[in-house]
C-alpha cells in the first residue's frame, strides 16, 4: 500500500477524490455483505421458520442492498478515475518542471526520446493502479473482513470454518509468492532477453548487409529459450500451492461433507445446519473472488511501483543537476575567469581544476584533438551547466551570483546542430529579442546570410519550419540560429564552428555569418578549420583537459609545439585525394 501514499503525494489537491473512492468502495463492500446477510435471513425464514412473508420482504432487501452496492461501486470508480487522470497530468507536469530546471549535462547524458518515454509511459502506467484498482483493492481487502464478521454473526461454527479457510488459503498464497530463487532467475533471464532483443533489432540491417544472420539469431534464440524455460520453471514452482488453494476453496463443501455425513442423522437442528452450509458455500465463494482480485492487484501494484520509482529516479537526476542563480543583474565587465573548474560526465572527469582567464572584447579560438576537453570548456561558459567544483567568473563574480535573465541576456551561444522551433522562420529569429522591430529582425537575418534561404520559399520569412515540403539543410538551420544570436546582441558569444559534413557553399556562407556575429564581442570559438583562425587574438591549445599552449598564430608556430603539429596534420588531411593507384 506504500505505493499509494507515494502516488498520492503528487495529487495533494485531489487526495480527497482518492479517499472518497476508498470510502465509497468500502461502503459498497459493506452493503454487499449486508446483501448476503439478507440472503442468510431469507434462507432462514424460508427453511427454518417457514415464514414466507418475511422471506419475501428479505428478498426485496437483497435486491435493494445489492443494487445500492453496485451503484456505489460505480460511483467510487468515478472518483478514482478523476484522481487517476489528475495524477497522470501532475506526473507529466512534474516532469516538465524538472526539464526546465535541469542543467544541460542532463540532456547531454540522456537521449531525448528516452526521457519522453520514461515520463510519458510511466505516468500512463499508474492509471491502472489508481483508476481501476483503487476501488477494486479496497473491496478485495474489505469484503473478506466483512464476510468473516458476517460468518460469526451467523454462528460460531460458520465463523470458525471461514476463519480457518481464510488463514490456510492466505498462508498458501504467501508461500506461492515467496519463491525468491525462481523469481530471480526469471527476472534475470527476462532482462537478458530484453537486451538481446534490442541488440538484434538494432543490428539487423547491418547483419543483412553482411549476410551473417545465423550467428546473431543464435544469441537471441538462446535468450528466448532460457527465458521460456525459467518462466516455466517459475510457474511450475507455484503449481502445488495454487492447485491446493483452489482445491480447498472449490472443494470446501466436499471437505466438510465427509466428516459431516457421519453425524447427519444425529443432528438436533438439521435445518439450521443446512442454512449454514449454504452460507458457507456462498461466503467461501465471495472470499475466493476477493483473493483472486488481490492477486491481480499485486501485479498492478508492482507495475505502478515500478513506474513511480522510474519516474522519481528521473526527477531526482534532474534535481541533482539543478542550476542555481543569484541576484546580481549587472555585469561590471566581461572578463572571463575559469577558477579550478572541475567537471565530469558520469564517472568520466573531463576537466580537473582547470584555470584560464580571458579578456573582454577579444577573440579566442580553442583547438585540440577530439576529446581534449575544448568543447566542454565552451559549453560550461554558457551558464547552463553545474560545475563539480570551482567557479566560472565573469566581471569578477561567479555565474551563479547573477540572475538567470542576466546570464541569458549577456551570453549567446551557437553550437553544432542548432534546433529550430516549429514556427515561422521569422518567429524563430525574433524570439531572441521580443522588443526588436521587424527591420532589426530582417537585418539580423541578412547579416547571417538567410536572405537566400528565405527567397527559396513562397511564404518567405513566414515559412513554417517543419511544414510540408520545407526542407532545410544543417547549414541553413545553422545560419538561422546565427541570425537569432545576432539579434540577441549579447556581449559574450560562444560558438562552435561548422562541422566537416557540410558542403563548401554552405561552409563559406556560415563563415561569413559567424564573422558578422563576432563583431565587437568577446568571442570564444571552437575551431575546426585551422586555416580560418590565423588572425584571431589568441589561440588556446587544449590537451587532456589542460591548456597546452597559447598565443597568436605567429608565436605558436615559432614554438614548433602541439599547435604546429596539429596544423601540419590538418594540412595533409585537407590536401588528401582519393587515388586509384592502378591509374597512377
Amino acid at each position, binding site marked *: 500500500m506504500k505505493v499509494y501514499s507515494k502516488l498520492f503525494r503528487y495529487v495533494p489537491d485531489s487526495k480527497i477524490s482518492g479517499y472518497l473512492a476508498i470510502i465509497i468502495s468500502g461502503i459498497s463492500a459493506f452493503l454487499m455483505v449486508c446483501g448476503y446477510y439478507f440472503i442468510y435471513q431469507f434462507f432462514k425464514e424460508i427453511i427454518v421458520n417457514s415464514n414466507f412473508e418475511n422471506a419475501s420482504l428479505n428478498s426485496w432487501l437483497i435486491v435493494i442492498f445489492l443494487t445500492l*452496492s*453496485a451503484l456505489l461501486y460505480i460511483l467510487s470508480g468515478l472518483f478514482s478515475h478523476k484522481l487517476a487522470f489528475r495524477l497522470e497530468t501532475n506526473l507529466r507536469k512534474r516532469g516538465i518542471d524538472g526539464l526546465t530546471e535541469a542543467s544541460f549535462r542532463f540532456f547531454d547524458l540522456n537521449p531525448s526520446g528516452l526521457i519522453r518515454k520514461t515520463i*510519458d509511459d510511466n505516468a500512463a502506467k499508474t492509471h491502472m493502479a489508481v483508476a481501476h484498482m483503487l476501488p477494486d483493492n479496497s473491496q478485495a481487502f474489505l469484503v473478506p473482513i466483512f464476510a468473516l464478521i458476517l460468518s460469526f454473526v451467523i454462528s460460531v461454527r460458520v465463523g470458525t470454518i471461514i476463519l480457518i479457510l481464510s488463514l490456510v488459503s492466505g498462508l498458501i498464497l504467501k508461500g506461492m509468492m515467496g519463491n525468491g530463487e525462481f523469481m530471480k532467475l526469471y527476472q534475470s533471464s527476462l532482462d537478458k532477453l530484453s537486451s538481446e532483443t534490442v541488440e538484434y533489432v538494432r543490428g539487423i540491417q547491418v547483419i543483412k548487409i553482411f549476410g551473417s544472420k545465423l550467428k546473431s539469431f543464435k544469441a537471441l534464440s538462446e535468450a528466448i529459450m532460457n527465458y521460456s524455460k525459467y518462466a516455466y520453471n517459475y510457474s511450475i514452482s507455484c503449481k502445488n500451492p495454487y492447485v491446493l488453494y483452489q482445491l480447498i476453496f472449490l472443494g470446501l463443501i466436499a471437505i466438510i461433507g465427509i466428516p459431516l455425513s457421519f453425524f447427519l442423522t444425529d443432528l438436533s437442528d438439521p435445518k439450521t445446519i443446512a442454512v449454514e452450509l449454504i452460507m458457507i458455500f456462498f461466503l467461501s465463494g465471495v472470499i475466493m473472488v476477493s483473493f483472486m482480485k488481490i492477486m491481480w492487484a499485486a501485479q498492478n501494484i508492482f507495475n505502478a511501483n515500478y513506474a513511480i520509482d522510474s519516474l522519481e529516479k528521473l526527477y531526482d537526476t534532474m534535481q541533482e543537476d539543478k542550476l542555481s542563480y543569484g541576484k546580481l543583474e549587472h555585469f561590471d565587465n566581461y572578463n572571463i575567469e575559469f577558477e579550478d573548474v572541475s567537471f565530469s560526465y558520469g564517472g568520466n572527469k573531463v576537466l580537473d581544476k582547470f584555470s584560464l582567464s580571458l579578456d573582454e572584447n577579444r577573440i579566442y579560438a580553442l583547438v585540440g584533438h577530439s576529446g581534449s576537453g575544448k568543447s566542454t570548456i565552451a559549453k560550461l561558459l554558457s551558464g547552463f551547466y553545474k560545475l563539480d567544483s570551482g567557479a566560472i567568473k565573469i566581471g569578477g563574480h561567479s555565474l551563479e551570483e547573477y540572475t538567470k535573465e542576466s546570464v541569458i541576456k549577456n551570453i549567446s551561444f551557437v553550437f553544432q546542430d542548432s534546433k529550430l522551433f516549429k514556427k515561422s522562420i521569422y518567429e524563430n529569429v525574433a524570439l531572441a529579442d521580443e522588443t526588436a522591430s521587424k527591420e532589426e529582425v530582417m537585418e539580423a537575418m541578412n547579416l547571417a546570410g538567410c536572405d537566400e534561404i528565405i527567397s527559396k520559399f513562397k511564404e518567405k520569412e513566414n515559412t513554417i519550419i517543419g511544414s510540408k515540403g520545407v526542407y532545410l539543410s544543417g547549414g541553413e538551420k545553422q545560419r538561422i540560429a546565427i541570425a537569432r544570436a545576432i539579434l540577441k546582441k549579447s556581449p559574450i558569444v560562444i560558438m562552435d564552428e561548422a562541422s566537416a559534413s557540410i558542403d563548401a557553399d554552405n*561552409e563559406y556562407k556560415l563563415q561569413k555569418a559567424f564573422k558578422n556575429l563576432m563583431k565587437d564581442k568577446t568571442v570564444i570559438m571552437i575551431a575546426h578549420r585551422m586555416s580560418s583562425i590565423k588572425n584571431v587574438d589568441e589561440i588556446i591549445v587544449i590537451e587532456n583537459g589542460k591548456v597546452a599552449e597559447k598565443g597568436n598564430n605567429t608565436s605558436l608556430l615559432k614554438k614548433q609545439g602541439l599547435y604546429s603539429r596539429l596544423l601540419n596534420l590538418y594540412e595533409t588531411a585537407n590536401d588528401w585525394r582519393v587515388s586509384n593507384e592502378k591509374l597512377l
Partner: protein
Amino acid sequence: MKNYYKKRYCISEQGAKNLTKATWFCFLTYLINLAPMFILIALFNQLVLGNVSSVWQYVSMAVLTLVFMYVLLSKEYTSLFNATYKESADLRKDIAENLANLPIAYFSKHDLSDLSQTIMSDVQEIEHAISHSIPKVVGMWLFFPLMGLAMLIGNWKLGLAAIIPTLLSFLILPLAKKKEVASYSKYFDVLRDNSAAFQETIELQQEISSFNQSAKVKDSLYKKMEESEKIHFKVEFGSMSVMGLSTLFSYISVAVVIMIGMSLFLHGEITMLYLVAYIIGAIKVKELFDISKEGTMEMFYIEPAVRRIKEMRSTALQEGIDTDILSYDVKFRNVSFAYDDDTKVLKNISFIAKQGEVTALAGISGCGKTTILRLISRLYDYDEGKILVGGKDIKGISTDSLFKVVSIVFQDVTLFNTSILENIRLGKETATDEEVKRAAKLANCIDFIEKLPDGFDTKIGENGAELSGGERQRLSIARAFLKDAPILILDEISASLDVDNEKKIQESLNKLIKDKTVIIISHRLKSIENVDKIIVIDDGLVEDSGTHKELINSSKTYANLINKTKLAEEFSY
C-alpha cells in the same frame, strides 16, 4: 477452435493445439466445480426435506469430487503454462526470423524501438493472456450453454431469470470496448500531439533555456496536458458507464433469481428444493463471471498487440533470386524516388559507375547524393526506373547475392556488444583470427586496439559505446577490408572527425579502394579531384558529369563549389 486460435491470436499450429487442450481442461474444471454444489443440494435434501442418503454415498461422492478436482486442476495448470511458454518462445523466434527475412528497406521506415517492443512486450501481453485469460474465458463459453441448458430444462422461468442478467452483464463488455475504440481514436490523436510537443520541448531544451522561453513553453505544455485530461475523462466516462452497467447486472442477477424464485415458490410452481438449488446455481454462475470478467477485458486489450504482429507478418518478404554477379558496373537508369509521397528527392537520374573506376557524387547538401547511396544499398527501394549491378536489377536479385559483391562504409557505424575480433569478423564469417587481424592492420586499427585492456578480445559495450567516432569508422573499414567485395560504397566517411583520425582513415582508404568499383560521396571536393568520374547532382537531377578538369568549365554547380572551397579555405575570422 484450433483454427480460430491460430487466426485470431497469430499463434503457431502447435501453440493453437496446446491452447485448445488447455481450453478443454478449463472446461472440465468448470464441470467438476459443479460437483460440490450437488453435494450441497443432496445435504439440503436430507437435512431439510428428510430424503436420506447413506454415509457412504456422501463420502464416496466427496472423495471422488476432491480427487477429480485435484487431478483436473493440476492438469489444467500444467497445460496452461506449458502452452504459454512454449508458444511465447515460438512466437518470439518466429517474429525474429520473420524480421530477418523482411526487406532491408522495412527497417529504414520503422522505428527500431517499436520493433523491439513487438518482440518483447507485445508477446508478453499475449503470453499473459494465454496463461490467464484465453483458455479460461473460452472454456467458460463452452461451459455456459451447458449450464444454461440444464437450468432451462429444470424450470425455464427460473432458468431465464438466472441466465439473462448474467448474459447481459457479459454481452455488454464488447459494447464497452467498441465505444472505447471509437472515442479513443480521438483521444489518441490528442495524446500523439502531446507527445510530439513534449518531445520537441526536450529536444529544444537548449534553445528554450537560452532564449528565456521556459515559462512560455511550460505554460503551453501545461495547458495541453490539462486539455487532454479533460478529453481523456470524457472518453473514458463513456466506456466506464457501460462497464458500470455490466457490474450492475452481475450484482442483481442473484437478486432477480431470488425474487422470481420466491414468487414461483409462493404460487406453488416450484418446490423448495428447486428454489434453493437455483439460487445456489445462480450465485455460482455469477462468481464464474466475476472471475472471467478481467480475463475478457484482457482479451480485448491484447488486440493491438496481435494486430502489430499481424501487420508485420503481412509485409512482403524480401524477394529476389540468388544470382552470381559476375561484372561490376553500377548503372542508374531513369531512377526516381520519394521518401514520402509528395516530394521527389531523385528525379529521373541516370549514370554509370564503371567497373574498376572511382566515381564520386558531388553537390550541395540535400541534393540527393546520400539518397543515391541508400538506394544502391537497398536501405530504401527505388520507385521508378532501374538500378542495375553487373547488369542485374537489384530488386530482382536476393540481398544475399547483392551484398556478396557490395561493401558499404557509412557515416554511422553499428557495432555489437561482443569482442573487437567478432565485430570485424562480421565482414566475413569464415575468416580466421589471422585474417581479421590483418584487416585491422590495413585499416590502421592496431594502435587503438592495442591500448584496450584485452586487445582484440575486448568487449566494446552496447553499440561500441566505449569507442570514439574515428575508431568506430576504422573498425568499419576493417570489416570492408575483410569482406573485400569488388564494389565499394563510401559515404562521407571523414565527416565530423578531427584531423588526427581523419589522416589515418584516409591512409587506409587509399589501400581499400584499390582495383574496386567505388562510389564515393565527399564534401571535400579536393579529395575527389583525381577520381575517374564526378557526377554533379543538383536538386535531384544529374546536372553534369566528367572529370574535375572538364567540370570546372562545364558545370555551374561544380565550379561554384570549387570556388567556395577556395574562399572557405582562405577565409579568416
